[in-house]
């Protein structure tokens, strides 16, 4: 059971890296596009009318693409002064509680993002100037939040399957 969970966890971690890679690619596109926009505005005196809204819309997937990757890399800031002093068993229980809370928060945001993706797909909601469909930007955000939530669930299951003594 534990080995299967570890395999699943490793698969989600690979997925987390791919999602982060996708977000990174968007950052490169934004950097080049905005720089191009500045250049054509001053050099060719012909402003790019798409750049501002398009790159701002692209920020939405970037904001969530690194969520699971940050968890994998333990990049979320936390204060562990108190929990470090706890006995192993109690610390393990607190870790389970924390992972459960992270799953609950991730799950809530995932639900909101999935609901927004479906809602914007059916309503045909679009951006203000370019009229790009909103669901195109909600969908990658929702996918990132879902992978984060599933990854957290697997990590929680792993914690539940691990005894505090075997961790030490």
């Amino acid at each position, binding site marked *: 059971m534990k080995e299967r969970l570890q395999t699943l966890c490793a698969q989600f971690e690979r997925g987390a890296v791919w999602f982060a890679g996708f977000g990174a690619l968007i950052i490169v596109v934004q950097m080049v596009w905005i720089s191009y926009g500045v250049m054509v505005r001053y050099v060719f005196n012909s402003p790019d009318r798409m750049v501002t809204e398009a790159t701002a819309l692209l920020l939405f997937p970037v904001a*969530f693409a690194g969520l699971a990757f*940050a968890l994998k890399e333990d990049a979320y*800031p936390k204060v562990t002064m108190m929990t470090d002093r706890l006995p192993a068993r109690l610390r393990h229980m607190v870790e389970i509680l924390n992972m459960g809370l992270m799953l609950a928060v991730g799950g809530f945001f995932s639900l909101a993002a999935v609901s927004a993706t479906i809602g914007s797909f059916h309503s045909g909601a679009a951006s203000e100037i370019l009229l790009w469909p909103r669901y195109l930007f909600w969908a990658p955000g929702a996918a990132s939040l879902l992978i984060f939530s599933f990854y957290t669930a697997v990590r929680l299951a792993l914690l539940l399957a691990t005894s505090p003594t075997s961790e030490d």
Partner: protein
Amino acid sequence: MEWYEVGIGLLALLMMFITIGLPIPFALAAASLPFLWQIQDFSTSLVSSELKLWGVWIDYILLAVPLFVFLGELIGRSNIGPNLYQFLHQGVRIKGSAAYGSIGACAGFGAVCGSSMVGSLTIGGVALPEMIRLGYGRRLSSGVLAAGGTLSVLIPPSLILLFYGIVTDQSIGELFIAGVVPGVILVTFFVLVVLVWGMLKPGDIPSREEAIKMTLMEIASTVGPILLIGLTITVAIYTGIATPTEAAAVSALLTVALAFGVGELTRAAFVESLLATMRTMGYLGLLLSAGVLFGFVLTYFRVPHQFTELFLSYDLSPYLVLTIVLVFYIALGMFLEPVSMTFITLPTIYPLMSAAGFDLIWFGVVYTITMEIAVLTPPVGLNLYVIQGIGRGSVTIGDVIIGCLPFIAALVALIGILILMPSTALWLPELMS
């Protein structure tokens, strides 16, 4: 529910979650959600969250964040930062050049990178072993590098000023420009600290340092990139040629070219920089989203407004209010890191500062300096641990903390100057407008 019940309840829940080690973005969201469900049923709260998420992240100004983070990561992984330190250390032959060089390199790094920790890590990684090898005192070496990193937070571009501008709805360009003069004063103060330290403890600064003379070409290749990137950002924003986001994009692209061209950046390091940016964005993505929910709950119950009214009803002098706020931030900074503090506390504090009659651009600079103190104060002083980690056993955390004390005094002195002469921060933005 009364506003004070919500305020106290939110704060208690948040503190409880933070104390049990729940990562701060999740603690912020987990504390807000029960109160959100007091106002709305579950399905309405989902719709509210959708609207809030879309509203906060479709923001062209916010786009500057990943671009500046990426720029800092590129500099950190290329030789541009270390090269600047080598020039300021070897190219300038004076007693204590390695210490002054560290301050200069941190300031130069600060002009292209907005993160204090990346500043300490990049320059400290090269300078700390070198200073200890040359015979500098351990406390001086670690103190100057931990404090030097904080220059990145004040000298534009600054991520803290950027987030401050987003939360308080102030002009990012004006905030960046307001940080320039205080940043220069702080560099001068840090140099004075080293000078006085050398007088009081001559044994901490070696009388002679072996230094290889650099050729003009070498000097140009070490100073040139930082100068070019720093000027691109500052001049573009100052003259209004580009918005902060555009300046971030152009300077990031320029940094990619320079890092590959003269900074010996490898393809693997480039990919690492991108992934490190996404790692930071992962945490910021959730922090900002949770911060918006937190802000929504606070605003719905009129907590900032009522808190401000209550505070003002005591008829305290504005400077007493400011002192209380600064002491609060310095105390809180011992336990929380600056970005989280910004999203947790500022929505409530900035209306109070505005009502007390303080200019919010000026307060942004003062606030940023308190954040610099926060990263230098234990037990959660990020820069202290960065320098101790780089030292690999050669410096203790006690050395770093004691070494930082005179530099913290310099930061407090700078706050004093800003209170006595607000124009120190406001002169350049006024000139710009």
